[in-house]
Every structure is written in C-alpha cells, then in structure tokens.
C-alpha cells in the first residue's frame, strides 16, 4: 500500500524534472556570454575556422528549439551531454564529484542536528532561562551569519592560528587512500586505513561546521518553538497525571509531537545542504558539485550547468518525498 503510493510519487518526479530541464536550458541560453568565445579567450590565439568548427560540434549553430530537442532526447537516455570545459561526459563529472558533496552535506546535517536537537529541547524546557536566551541569540547569529564568512573565520582560528585542522581539500594525499565509493570516510573504513580515516574526518570538520551552522540555527529555533507549543498541551498534563517521569514526558510525549513541524524544516535543510554549498565548497576548495557548478557557470559550460542543476533539483524533490514518507510515520493523521 505504502509502496504503491511511494512509487506513484516517484513517477510524479518525471514531469517535474522535465520542467526543470527545459527551464535551465532556456535560462542558460539567456545569460550573456558565448561559451566558445570564453573558451577561445582562455586559449589565446585562434584560427577563424576553429570557432565555427566548435560551434558546429556543440550544436550551437542550430536554432534554439533544435538544441532543446537534442538536449532532451539525450537526457531521456541518461546522457547529459559533454562538458565543453572538461571535455568529459557530464554524467561522469557529476558522478565523480557527487560523493564529496553528499559527504559534506551529511557532515553538516550531523553537526546541525547534534547541536540543534539538545539545544532546541533544553531551551523549550527552560524557557526564558539564561541558557534559552543565550542559545536563541546564538541561533539568530547562526541564521544571519553568511556561511563563507563563518568558513573564513573558522579557517583563521582553527587552521591558521591553532593549526588543529587542515585548511582545504578532502584528505591528505600522503594517507594513500584507495578510493572505492568516493565517500572518503567510508572508503577509509572499508579499506581499514586509519590514517586516511583520521585525515578525512579532520578535513570534514570545518566545512561541516561552516555549512551546518545555518541548519543548526534553523532547526534549533523550530524545534524550540514547537516544543514550547507541545509542552503547553493537555496531553502533557495527562502524561504527568499518569505518573510518567518528567524526562519521558519531554522526550516522548512532547518531543514526538514537536517532531512533526521539525521534520519539514530538516527536509528542506537537506535540500539546502546539498544544493546551497557552492560558497562553502569554494572557500574550503572542497571538490564537490558546488565548485563544479561555479566553474561551469563562469565558463558558460551549458551541458555541465544543466546537469548539475538537474541533480540539485532531483535532490530537492527526493528530500521532499522523504519528508512526506517520514511524516506518515510521525503524524498518524497523515497518509501519503
């Protein structure tokens, strides 16, 4: 029953992705700047025929609707084209960089939740206490502080000044990690390489904090306010009247209900963490999709931009679906 509904929802993603594909295609053609010009500008002197040759190769000489048709026809077959700049299939480039981005997003999510969940609950229980006021001020700061600024600050303190953590990259190449899945932490464990594990974890810390700070702040605020709300409810008094320990009154009876609005925000944050990391990846030279996207945009690498944006869109859609599925477990009033 649930399986059928999930399948149905997955099928809905097809028209959504189609729409995204058309939109991103059109937007890219509307941005000023010609990819071949930019490429040639980098290459220096060019023979006149060469530019024509390239345009033909990329189908840039065709009318727009023909280009769109060619792009969509390939996309349906899982072929997102060929990157102008890297001279490699787009799918291959994305597959190479995606694990890095997912690893960072998971690190940031983990950091966000570890910080936000206890703070959100504690602040709600001790409403208007010093702890509450301090953490909510912190949350305000976390929401309003730009990630790149926090990233630079963290690098200055923990890498440059204290020298505790590395500045950039995903791993020390001297650790000799043998890549299996592309998730370096996982690969280190799979290959039993302790040096690589320590190194990859150390590299992961600062970017995760920089990226996850906003998530932590967001989730803490939502969790606090929904906990405050559910702690006010009659069912909390009933739980106490039954003789339930206060710890369980909070962690079972109140939290279970407060999770309902919180899960929505966490779901949105998953999308944000996967798709909103361009700046943090740039600051920490993290070789992920975000950095790939930035480069692709600056070099008008149409196929690559289209590919990356479609991956972003897909993660958003899937994150939403995940939230909806989770919802049916948390909130008995809702069915898929």
């Amino acid at each position: 029953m649930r399986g059928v509904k999930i399948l149905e929802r997955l099928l809905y993603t097809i028209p959504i992705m189609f729409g995204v594909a058309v939109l991103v295609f059109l937007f890219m053609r509307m941005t000023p700047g010609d990819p071949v010009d930019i490429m040639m500008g980098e290459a220096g002197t060019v023979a006149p025929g060469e530019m024509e040759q390239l345009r033909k190769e990329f189908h840039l000489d065709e009318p727009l609707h023909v280009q769109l048709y060619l792009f969509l026809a390939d996309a349906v077959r899982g072929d997102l084209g060929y990157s102008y700049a890297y001279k490699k299939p787009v799918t291959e480039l994305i597959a190479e960089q995606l694990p890095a981005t997912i690893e960072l997003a998971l690190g940031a999510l983990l950091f966000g939740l570890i910080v936000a969940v206890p703070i959100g609950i504690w602040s709600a229980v001790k409403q208007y206490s010093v702890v509450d006021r301090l953490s909510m001020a912190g949350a305000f700061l976390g929401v309003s502080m730009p990630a790149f600024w926090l990233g630079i600050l963290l690098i200055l303190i923990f890498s440059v000044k204290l020298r505790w953590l590395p500045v950039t990259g995903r791993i020390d190449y001297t650790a000799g990690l043998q890549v299996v899945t592309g998730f370096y932490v996982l690969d280190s464990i799979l290959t039993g390489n302790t040096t690589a594990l320590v190194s990859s974890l150390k590299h992961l810390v600062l970017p995760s904090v920089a990226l996850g700070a906003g998530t932590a702040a967001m989730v803490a605020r939502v969790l606090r306010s929904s906990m405050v709300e559910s702690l006010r409810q009659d069912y909390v008094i009933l739980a106490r009247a039954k003789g339930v320990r206060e710890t369980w009154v909070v962690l079972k009876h109140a939290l279970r209900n407060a999770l309902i609005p919180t899960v929505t925000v966490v779901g949105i944050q998953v999308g944000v963490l996967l798709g909103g990391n361009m700046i943090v990846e740039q600051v920490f030279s993290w070789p992920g999709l975000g950095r790939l996207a930035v480069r692709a945009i600056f070099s008008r690498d149409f196929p690559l931009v289209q590919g990356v944006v479609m991956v972003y869109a897909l993660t958003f859609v899937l994150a939403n679906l995940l939230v909806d599925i989770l919802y049916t477990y948390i909130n008995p009033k809702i069915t898929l």
Partner: protein
Amino acid sequence: MTTERKPLLEIRSLTTVFPTRRGLVRAVSGLDLTLARGELLGLVGESGCGKSVSMLSILRLVSHPGRIVAGEVLLEGQDLLRLPIHAMRQVRGRQISMIFQDPMTTLNPAFRVGDQIAESLRIHGMLNGSGSSIWPFNRGRAEAERKRVVELLDEVGIAVPWEARKRYPHEFSGGMQQRALIAIAVSCHPKILLADEPTTALDVTIQAQIMDLLRRLNQEHGTSVILVTHNLALAATFCQNIAVMYAGRLVEKGSTDAVIEDPRHPYTRGLLECIPKIGATRQPLQPIPGNVPDLAELPPGCAFHPRCKKAQDACQEGEIPLVTLEDGRQVRCLLYV
C-alpha cells in the same frame, strides 16, 4: 484502626496562586475539603472559582507559573505536598487519577490508544507476575499487557476493543475518547478519581452513559470520585454529597438532599435560584446580583459579602471559620457561627 476513621483524602487550607502582571491571582485560597472512602462527591461552583486548579493541586500538576503556597493534601494521613517527586509519581495514576474536561486534546495524538493505556500499566508495574509463563519474559508481558488493555477498553464500553486499541485518538469519537481516558484513569485501580467536568464536551446521551460508567466503577471497585461540574442538576443526580466553592474556597458541603432542599449558605441559595426547574410554574430566574470577584483582589472577610443579601458589617472582617452543623453539614458563613 486510626486510618479507617480518617477520611481517605483531606485537603486543609490549600492555597494555590498564579503570579501575573495584574498581581497575585489566588485561584484557590484556603480550600478545606474531605473525601471519604467510596464517596461520590460533587464539587460545584461558577466558572473560574478554582475547581480545576484545586484538582490539579491535589496531584501537584499546576503548571507554571502557578504555585501551591500553603496547605496540606492528606491521602490516608500522608501529606502529598511534602512527598519527594519520585514518591509523588507513585501516587499519580496509581492512588489518584484524573479525568479531564476535553478528551479531544488530552489524549496524545501521536500514540495509539492501546499504547497510552498500556503505558500506565507499565509505569505502575501492574503486569509484574503476569509474565511468568514459559514464554520469554517480554513476550509474556506484552501478551498480558494486550489482554489487560482489551479488558479495560471493554470495561469502559468501547465496542470491538481488540481493534480499538490499535486506533489513534483522532479515529475515535468524543465519547470514545473520554471512555479511553477513563480506561487510562482506572487502569491501575486508583482509590480516588478526580473527574474534572468529564462530560462537558459531550452530548447529553453520551453524558448519561459516561456518568453511568463512573457510577459503576464506584460501586464495583469502591473508587471514590470527586465530580467537578458547574451543573448542579448533574451533581444532584449523581452524587451523595455536594461541595460548593466560591472564589477559591469551600462555602458549603453536605449531603445532596440537604444542600438542594435546604441550602444554608446565601451563595448556595443564590445558585439554586438560578436553576430553572423542569415542570415548575414559570417564575423569573433570580440571578445573583453583582459579579464574581477578581481573584487578584479578593474582598476581605467573606469573599461573597459584596453580593450577599444578608451581609453584615462583620462579614468584611477577619477569617470566617468553617462550621459543622448538627446534620454534619459544613458551612462557612457568619450566620451560623
């Protein structure tokens, strides 16, 4: 034995306050009330006179910023207000249970009804010993738990209880929700049931069924019940005794017949005159003049004196004692001192 002569529950000068911006709201100010074993007591009074806060105070469940500042709540001679919190938890749901006014919001929407009943059983170890089958302990206990939950749902009159236990509260009607709450409340055979307007949210036929259910529990298990209501007629048909509250205090308590037929306190009389009698000749109803006093600025002396037809100068001064009349009735009024 001394405990046999003592009342089951004795509340002495209970005072619960709420510090607010307007000042200190005295929701309950010096309440005295006793409840005997097996007694069905109706607690009546106008809205806002402190009935709910009194009941919550007995279980020490008054929410922030409310505070119990004085008094004693003696359960079989033991003062609940001085119990450490872990001992208090043993009282809640086990010795004294509460049924709330609004079943819709009182059940936890996120858990199955059966699990909410089972939680009470588990907390108070009501199933220990029942898992002593050849099955592994947990399996036996889960089985016993299910059986007991179904029994309880059946006892409170829920049809198809083995299906109903798997339902969520929102899948229940209001009447069924209240029955489920009663099942939770009686699951551990408490000595006292505090029923705070248990039928206000329900329609009249369901109301009668719920009251029947409470009466049956009282007769079969000897559970004492305090029925909080502002419906004097309901209290009169259901209860042996009636207690009348005004502005956070007890003003009169006596047997139902005595209080209804021959009210002594001017406030009780006023209340009775407000009630239309079915079948009686059409008389204009007599509302009590004036308004309920602001609990943050209680008048000195008897709080009722500004509205009382028989007020004397002395009513404005000092503490009015609660006197016991020859028929065992308690009244707090200078007319009887």
